């Protein structure tokens, strides 16, 4: 039953990513060319509502439906891993025009070439696991 809820959330996510065109290479390219407000509007409005909502959750100490604690943790302080990791991620994001979520959405939409990107992403994740201890964090 619980798994069906996550499946439904995933379906909604897929619809929103595809219909907002956030899963389109063209929109990502246009964003990095500052050619349209569209992508900034999506991220900005999600963020505006997100910030207010998270503040409400924290101030009122709201709990998840099944009890327990809200999954809102402070991230480890550092600069290197976030900046360097972020730059590497951004290079890939602009090249393939898709971040991890939209990759799955595009797979469902039938773009078989995205399988190559997904294989790459899994390989990249695996590579990180292999050399993690040698990287500055």
């Amino acid at each position, binding site marked *: 039953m619980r798994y069906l809820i996550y499946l439904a959330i995933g379906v909604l996510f897929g619809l929103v990513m595809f219909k907002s065109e956030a899963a389109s290479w063209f929109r990502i390219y246009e964003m990095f060319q500052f050619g349209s407000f569209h992508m900034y509007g999506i991220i900005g409005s999600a963020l505006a509502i997100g910030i207010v909502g998270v503040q409400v959750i924290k101030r009122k100490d709201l709990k998840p439906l099944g009890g327990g604690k809200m999954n809102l943790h402070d991230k480890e302080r550092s600069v290197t891993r976030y900046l360097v990791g972020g730059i590497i991620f951004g290079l890939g994001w602009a090249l393939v025009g898709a971040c991890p979520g939209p*990759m799955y959405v595009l797979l469902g939409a039938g773009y078989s070439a995205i399988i190559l990107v997904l294989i790459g992403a899994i390989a990249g994740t695996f590579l990180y696991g292999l050399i993690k201890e040698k990287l500055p964090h």
Partner: protein
Amino acid sequence: MNWITNPWPWYISGPLIALIMFMLLATGKKFGMSSNLRTVCAAVGAGRTSQFFRYDWRADRWNLMVVLGAIIGGFLASNYMSDNTVIINPAVAQQLSEEYNIQSAGENYLPLEIFGTEALSNPYTIILLIVGGVLVGFGARYAGGCTSGHAISGLSNLQLPSLIAVVGFFIGGLSMVHLIFPLIF
């Protein structure tokens, strides 16, 4: 019924993304679409080679359900709710056409010059797609999150590390489009 087939505007899409984040928080989880890649690695036995994948991935099976849902959502949207074209700023479309010979802006959802079946017979395109994927997967884990985990979840929680990561995303993205594209396309 035009709202079904037309693209959804940012002021509908953005709030829906926030809603998705809150739904995941309400079920005790969090919104982040790249950690499932680690779950996949762990599930196929990567724990044998690295401590990083040696954890109870079964507790993360929920995010594989979200992934399955995203695939279904993409299928439904593409087949029943869209004409699969994306109209972008005409100046950007023209620049794509003139500088990179990418002509399919306004005609397709993705540039067929990169993602079409014909492009896949070109080894160069295949390498670009795989390298792009590796950068996304590696970078997301190094940075500890992607667009959803940092730009939406982390920034919503006012996390300075997420702001640093998002600045990184844009340094990387802008460098790729403005400095590297002219060299590789």
